[in-house]
Structures are given as C-alpha cells and as structure tokens.
C-alpha cells in the first residue's frame, strides 16, 4: 500500500469574493504521477500553488507526511516546482541555474562541496539530455531546451514531490508528445511524486496514474485514466474527456435503460427504479447498420472526413449525435444504429445535466457568440493569483 505524502483537507480559497476552491479534499501518494485536469479557472493551478506554499488556503489544512504545513514558507518545503514559463534566471548560465538550489541549501544537514555540486549538476544534465550545454546563456535556448533546464533545476534538489504547472503548453505538438513520454520516464526512474496541472485531457490520460478532474473549484472525479474515460461520474467529466453523446434517459431497472422511448441493455446497476439519468454513449461505440436492423433511426446532417474515421452528425428526433465510423454515409440519408451494452454508461443527474452532449455544435462558445444578450465573463486575472 503506497504511503500518503500530501493531504489537502477541506481546503477553500477565496479571492475578492470569488470562491476559487471549495472544500477540496485530496490525497497524494508516494511515487505517483497525479494530474489535476480541468478548464481554465477551475482551481487546478491554485491547488498546485497551495501545495507549493505560494498561497495559503483561506481555510482548511495541508499535510505533508502527516505534519501540518500551512504556515511553512515555500523555501522550507521539500517540494520543487517547474513553472509554466520556466522562470529561468536570465543572469545565470545553464550550470548556475541548475546549481542554484544546491548552492544555498544545506542538504542532509551539511553544505554541499564544490565537487558534489558539480557531479550532481552533470548527472542532471545527462538525465535531461542536455550534456554540453553547461555554459550556455539560458535566454538563447529554445523552448524545449529551457523546459529541460527548468526540470533539471527542480529535480537536482531531490525533492519528494515535483509540481509541474502546465509545463508543455508552449511547445509544439510533436515535441510535446515526446516530452510527455520523457517526463513519464523520469518519474518512473526517480520515484518522485509528480503533481501535474494541465487542461489537455489527452495529456492527462496518457501520462497519469491518477487523474483529478476539477471544475469551478470542486473536484468532480478522481480515478485512473481508464476509470475516468469509461465511467465518468457526471456530464461534465463525460464531456471534458473525449467526445460524448449525452442523452436523457430513464433507468428502468438494473441493466436496462430507456432512451428515446426504446429500451437498451446496459451493464450499469445501483440506481433507483425509473430514476431519470444521463446516458453517455461514446461516438466510437456506435455502429451504423441498415434501418431495418437498427435500434434507433435517424437522418445524417453532416459528414466530415477526418482521415482516421468520418465524423458523422446524425439527427435523432431533434437531438444531434456524433458518430465516428469508417463507413461513409451520404448527407440526408436515413440510417439505423446499434449500441452494445458495454457502449452505454449511465450516470446520475447533476447540475451539469443538459449542458453538454448535443452536437448541434462542437463547442458551447459557438452558440454564445451569436447571442447579443450575453455579456463577456470576467476571468480571474492571473495577477490576483500571484498577489496573495
């Protein structure tokens, strides 16, 4: 059983009447790759900064190895951070940037000697594949290189926990994918707990042992990537992770759910009889068949070629579904669909019901931008986060 390293208990954070975090409870274990995932403004960065000590929660406690650390300043915590814009010291070269933490700290009770510092820094440069870059000016490095220096600078101090604040955001796609594999490898090799913040769900799914999905300052779901994907707990999580069709349904009894007036077999249980529910069906779990074999029939309104598959938008009694299939269906044709029981996932209704899942448009913004009545939202500016 892995040891619990960090615990947040009922942490709430209020900035200027904005409740950024609402009674967060989180347990982070030893040797774990944990990702905080959510849209911007959900509180994931604030949670990270609370762990790092840059921000104190308005109420609630933070524990490290069982000890309450709310009042411990950042420079005394055995936690290191990789900042979003790297925050490399422009007046120091690569070697000095990495050695920074070693030069000021007393490690294991004594100050490190010049040789020890040198060997640790060189070891780190090797790990992040930057051998030979010691005396380079950090401002002359590319984004990917600066990234690695930032990681080396944090890891060289052998922290128990490494905090990463959307570190790959500024890199282009292929480099990002390589760095994801790289980071995962480093985490497994060093055994350090990584707490990773991102809004990119693909990134979260591919790297993490545990994913924590957040929205509006509240943790929506905690689980492994497979759990989060296959068994989202509400419409928000279902929609945020991958594409989902979310329709209203009624749970007739265990194993049977009714949508659009027809009964479907499913694998879910534990709901009250005839309870109104949200039903999630992933676009790739829908098969297109002849009308006579179909469980439901609808009209194709849009077909887009995506290379790997077609995105087909189908209208079922006014509700638009997204189906991903390798079969081509002409626009305006009538088709039938078939869904296997394990392609259906039932969730309790929540505040998010009705907000997601219909594919009249891919994004919520698309409809909002035509609405003259809507006023632009004020987002909590980043400066406020730094002022605490």
């Amino acid at each position: 059983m892995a040891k619990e390293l960090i615990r947040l208990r009922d942490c709430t954070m209020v900035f200027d009447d904005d409740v950024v975090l609402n009674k967060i409870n989180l347990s982070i274990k030893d040797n774990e790759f944990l990702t905080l995932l959510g849209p911007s403004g959900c509180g994931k960065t604030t949670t990270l900064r609370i762990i790092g000590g840059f921000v104190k929660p308005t109420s609630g406690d933070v524990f490290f190895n069982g000890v309450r650390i709310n009042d411990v300043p950042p420079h005394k915590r055995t936690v290191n951070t990789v900042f979003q814009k790297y925050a490399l010291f422009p007046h120091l070269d690569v070697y000095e940037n990495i050695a920074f933490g070693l030069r000021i700290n007393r490690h294991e009770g004594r100050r490190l000697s010049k040789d020890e510092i040198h060997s640790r820094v060189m070891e780190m440069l090797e790990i992040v594949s930057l051998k030979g870059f010691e005396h380079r000016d950090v401002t002359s490095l590319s984004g990917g290189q600066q990234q690695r220096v930032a990681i080396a600078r944090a890891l060289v101090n052998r922290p128990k926990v490494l905090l990463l604040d959307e570190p790959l955001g500024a890199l282009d796609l292929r480099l990002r994918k390589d760095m994801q594999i790289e980071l995962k490898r480093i985490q497994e090799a060093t055994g350090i707990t990584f707490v990773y913040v991102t809004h990119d769900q693909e990134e979260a799914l591919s790297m993490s042992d545990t994913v924590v999905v957040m929205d509006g300052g509240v943790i929506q779901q905690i689980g492994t990537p497979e759990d989060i994907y296959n068994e989202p707990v509400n419409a928000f999580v279902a929609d945020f992770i991958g594409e989902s069709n979310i329709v209203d349904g009624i749970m007739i009894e265990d194993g049977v759910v009714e949508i659009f007036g027809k009964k479907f077999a499913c694998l879910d249980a534990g709901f009250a009889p005839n309870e109104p529910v949200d039903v999630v069906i992933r676009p790739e779990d829908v098969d297109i068949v002849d009308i006579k074999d179909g469980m439901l029939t609808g009209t194709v309104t849009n077909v887009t070629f995506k290379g790997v598959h077609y995105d087909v938008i189908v209208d079922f009694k006014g509700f638009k579904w997204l189906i991903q299939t390798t079969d081509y269906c002409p626009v305006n044709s009538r088709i039938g669909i078939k869904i296997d029981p394990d392609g259906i996932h039932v969730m309790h209704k929540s505040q998010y019901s009705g907000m997601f899942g219909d594919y009249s448009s891919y994004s919520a913004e698309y409809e909002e931008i035509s609405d003259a009545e809507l006023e632009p939202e004020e987002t909590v500016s980043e400066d406020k986060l730094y002022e605490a």
Partner: protein
Amino acid sequence: MRRRPRVASRIFLALIYLFLYAPIFIMIVFSFNASKSRSVWSGFTLDWYTELFSDSMIISSLTTTIGVSVIAAIVATIAGTFAAIGFFNMRKRWRSPLLAINNIPVMNADIVTGVSLCLLFVSLGSVLKYQLGFGTLLIAHITFNIPYVILSVLPKLRQMDRNLVDAAMDLGCTWFQAFYKVIIPEIMPGIINGMMIAFTMSIDDFVISYFTAGSKVQTLSMTIYAMTRMRISPKINAVSTLLFLFILLLLIIINVRQIRQEEREKKLRTLKSK
C-alpha cells in the same frame, strides 16, 4: 510579509518624502509671510502675490515663457511626430545613427547644449546680422523639445499593429488616408503626451534659455535667477508656489490620462482572451 521591517521601511520612506518636500513647503509657507524674512514668521499676508502681478518684469517674462513654450511645443509636436513616423519606416542602418544624434540634446548636459547653440547663433549672427533674442530662444527650445516628442511617439508606433495600415489600404485607402485615419489616431496618446512633456520642459528650462535668449529677452526662469542672486523679496516664494500648483495640475492631468488609458487597455485584454 513580516511586520517589523515594514515599520522601519515606512519610517525611512517618510523621512525621504519629508526631505523632498520640506523645502517646497517652507517656500510655500513663507510666500504668505508678512515680513521679508525667509525664516522668521511675522504674520499672514497676500501682499507678495499682489506685488507679483504688478511687477512688470515678471509679467513680461511670464508672457515670454508661455509664448515660447506654447509655440515650441506645437512646432516640436508636429515636427517630432512626422520625424518619428519617418524614422519608424526606415531601415535600421539609417535609423540607429539618426536616433543617436536625436538623443544628443536629451543626454547632453544642459550647459553644453546651451553653450553650443549660443556659439552657433553668435557666429551665424555676425554673418547674418542677427542678434540673440526671441527667435534664437525659440529655435533652441524647439531643438531640445523635438527629441522628447520622438521618444514619446516612437514606442506607440512600435506598439501599433502593422496590419492596421495594410487593412486600411486593402479596404481602399490611399497611403495619405491611411496615415490620418489609422496611424494618427493610434499614436495620438503618444503625441499628446509628447506635447505635454515638451511644454513642461520648456517652461522649466533655465540653462539653455540663459545662453540663447540674449540680453533683451527674459524667460521666467531667467528672471527668477536674477531675483535669487539679489535675494530681495518673498516674491520668489510666491512665484514658486504658483509654479508648483501649476505643475501639480499638469502632472495630475497627465497621470489621470495614463491611468484611464491603461484601464481601457486592460479591459480590452480581458475581453479578447475570452
């Protein structure tokens, strides 16, 4: 934030501000002093202010100062704006040395600028039979004002989205229309700021005017200088009080405009990022 150092630093700051403002306030207080003494208070009076307004020397030098400052500011603003736009559209090879020359009046010690212009006017004057006077004073003021205008307008040009001009021309504008419909409005804050700074620098100038105005023309600063050498009356205090209030007003205006502008830009940024 620890408590104790904060108290010490606040006391330190307060002392510094006291140091900066004590002389000014002493001047203001003694401008109302009933006696001529600069350090003994004998009662409240507005006499010095009324004397000020009947002193013909002061009135005429005030008129001269305002005249020079206004004209110099306007000319410098127009010339500086065109110059800035011109420089902005140059290749770096030409622009860098030209900007370096432009900075000479700004960086040079006042006295060197004043003395060199004086030499120029005197040498030319003997040839062209022209004496030091309002004309040379004006030329000198324009010369040291234009660089400040350029320094104020250039950053605005750099901030301006280059695509705006292309967009205007794409929609049918000639370069001239693009100029006054697009470029000028975008850099207007820089132009106005530059004009106000040029105006303030002219009003405040002493050394350069001293060397280029000749004997027949006097600016307010030159009159004040003569007065301080003679150490006669608290009229000087009255002058400084009035000048202080005037400058305070100008600075408040400049700063309020800047604050409003920054808030407007901040609002646009949060709207755009949505």
